[in-house]
């Protein structure tokens, strides 16, 4: 089930890069961090810990390092 974003829809987001998030296409303006792009569309957990507790992005400044994602495609 989709968890609504915890942030308001962006009036200035416009269209931009389209990507797949949990099987559905979403768009993000160029320059967004991956974390921002995901948070804009979903309030769900990013991952589960080894003890199976849900976690999402927390600090947005590279301190907690818990919003790490795997990258399969590199920007040109």
């Amino acid at each position, binding site marked *: 089930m989709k968890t609504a974003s915890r942030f308001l829809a962006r009036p200035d987001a416009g269209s931009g890069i389209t990507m797949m998030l949990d099987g559905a296409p979403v768009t993000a303006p160029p320059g967004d961090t991956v974390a921002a792009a995901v948070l804009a569309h979903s309030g769900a957990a990013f991952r589960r810990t080894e003890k199976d507790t849900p976690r999402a992005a927390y600090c947005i400044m590279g301190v907690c*390092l818990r919003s790490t994602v795997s990258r399969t495609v590199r920007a040109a």
Partner: protein
Amino acid sequence: MTEADLIIVGAGPAGMAAASTAAEGGAGVLLLDRQSRPGGQAFSGVTVNGDRREFLGKDYLAGRILVDALHNSNIVAEYGASVWRLERGARVVWSQNDVSHISSAPHVLLAGGAQERPTPFPGWTLPGVMSAGAAQLLMKNAGLLPRDAVLAGSGPLLYLLAAQMIDTGARPKALVETQTRLSLLKASRHLPQALLAATTLLKGLRLIRRIRNAGVPGFTGASGFRVRQIADGDLSFSFNARGQEHSFTTPLLLTHQGVVPSTHISRASGVDHVWSDAQSAYQPVTDEWGATNVPGLHIAGDGAGIGGAEAAEAAGRLAAFDILHQLGRLSEDQRNRSAAGPRSALRRAMAIRPFLDAAYAPSRELSEPVGETIVCRCEEVSADEIRKSLIDSAQGPRHIKAATRAGMGPCQGRMCDLTVCGVLASCGADMSAPRARTPINPVRLGELAALAPSQET
């Protein structure tokens, strides 16, 4: 390997001011920053926001002046550059686009700034709980506005964030503060000195009035924070205030209790650190120019002790003048004369600190958590497990780390070092500054392997 007179780590207010000052003085500067653009956290995204997002305020937009001054042929700036090792001598090892580089220079200035103090309480690891600073960065860089958020904790950043949210129509659901009337009363003895920073004081009062006028429910002296997930995406945040229990349902709880110096890089580099009672944090020992016990290594800005963006800018210039002097580009007399302006700016900016530090001191409950509250987010170590390891003969942070794995995850203790120290202090145990080690930022194994031949030569 690249050569420069000075390598600056961090392109926030301190690093940017130092870079332009040193470059104008004739020094060759290599400026490294992990973000994709200059600005640091204070001025994050200032180069791309242009005239958009006016709600971020004049102080924020003023950051563009510092960015513009980086256009100097003596400055090579590398962004997306994550420093993961600093060696005496000095060599700086940094990673960019999956490739590591080694740069050397006779002088290094650390301008790594601050991070938010951890705010552990039951449920703080749930999705939907974020730091107030995180929300502000998302506003600055992505235009993301918090939805029906509750703000909780203490510190001026909560007022700034609440006012910015009100201005954008994303009014907070409540502002829940931990500081008590007693702490404000205790802080009032610092008010005469704070009057030197009257403009900052007035700005703060204006923010508080705007929040009140907007009708945001406010609480002070709050305690007993706990949060649980009630429905998909919604959280129930409860606390005690005015002798009553209160509860709010919100998708987003934004917590804060001030910022502390980011000392990971300085602790990994052999710099002496001390505990500051006033700021309840470790900070490196520096002289009036930002010089440390490590030859050739200066630290400026919030990374040397919290003072805010204006203080950081002034401290960056002071460090640059001292480095120019050591490079033989300024006489001692020239250095001292050049320093007069920044030094009085620094004094002005720091005048309000003792008041702020005392009025918004971290709450004991959030600094010395108990029970099942998670202390180390990476390894999921609870406050009880840390207390138990103390009873089982652990002494000091190193033993705690070995016994519980607290601080051994990807963040390397950035999110729990201070809390572990708080728990240690509450148990009367040794709380020396915890060690930090290379690599101080994540680096791919392949990058290390690729570096090996160049290190042998």
